């Protein structure tokens, strides 16, 4: 399984680490591998940005796994933001037949709930405030 282990982590905690994960890096991974990469990063206090977002089914599982990992005074969950899917994404007959599970192609930002706050969101702009906690 691919992890972010090879990434050098800073010794001090003066900043906020941002992991921008390309679609290529996520390609071929199972849903649980993707969720693990995201949650491992977020639980270390990092902001994870996915070039290509998760499928609805993966989002559903991400919520479920996040809930099982919430622990008082340690991990409060995640903040996740992405652009809403437009009507013409995956709405084709074939898309429906295939369960609309194709990659949604939407940039997605995920961070620890106590460190990221969404200031504004609409169809084309997401503005968020990230703190060091």
């Amino acid at each position, binding site marked *: 399984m691919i992890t972010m282990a090879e990434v050098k982590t800073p010794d001090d905690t003066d900043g906020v680490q941002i992991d921008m994960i390309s679609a290529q890096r996520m390609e071929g991974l199972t849903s649980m591998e993707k969720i693990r990469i995201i949650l491992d990063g977020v639980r270390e206090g990092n902001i994870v940005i996915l070039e290509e977002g998760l499928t609805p089914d993966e989002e*559903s599982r991400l*919520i479920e796994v*996040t*809930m099982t990992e919430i622990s008082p005074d340690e991990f409060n969950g995640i903040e996740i933001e*992405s652009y809403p899917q437009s009507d013409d994404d995956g709405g084709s007959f074939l898309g429906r037949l295939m369960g609309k599970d194709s990659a949604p192609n939407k940039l997605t930002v995920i961070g620890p709930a106590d460190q990221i706050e969404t200031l504004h969101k609409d169809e084309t702009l997401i503005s968020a405030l990230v703190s060091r906690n």
Partner: protein
Amino acid sequence: MGLLTGLRDSISRAASSLFSEQDPKRIGIYGPPNAGKTTLANRIARDWTEHGDAVGPESHIPHETRRARRKENVEIERNGKSVSIDIVDTPGVTTKVDYTEFLDHDMEKEDAVRRSREATEGVAEAMHWLREDVDGVIYVLDSAEDPFTQVNTMLIGIIESQDLPVLIFANKIDLEESSVKRIRNAFPQHETVPLSALEGDNMDEVYDKIAEYFG
């Protein structure tokens, strides 16, 4: 999902809808915390079941419902026809639970921690029900709140990806700040029905739409 699996699923869904007309459909009541899901479930149960038992306790404190609760065989009569559904009241879905927020509601730390643990289990359970065990969804929103949240967008996306029939209920229209238009604009692809589950406003249309969509 492979093409053959997709086709097989589509055929089996079509077949099950053809052959199980008599089985009550399980309709999940979903939405963010404090949207009024339990108030709605209770009103439906009181209006259409013999003893009018409540589905669960209502509260202004978020995450009052921490277990999915099912009320079986609710018979709704519309235009001379009878529609039978099971209503499943689910815990409000969120991506975060902070026990300290419960402390603001005069709760001791121990109780707040327990409530948050139960809430997280409830949300996980609600997601599981959505993937496996419901035939249709009533998505309840507080019309006095901004509907443009990530949880709403994700949940509607998840529901759409499962090809489940969905009705959006713009609840709490009795509040001054309520805006049904804001909800219609956020989810133009779905039918939005305004109501106040608490006051019983517009319930005729609510039941008409439930019968039309889930009957």
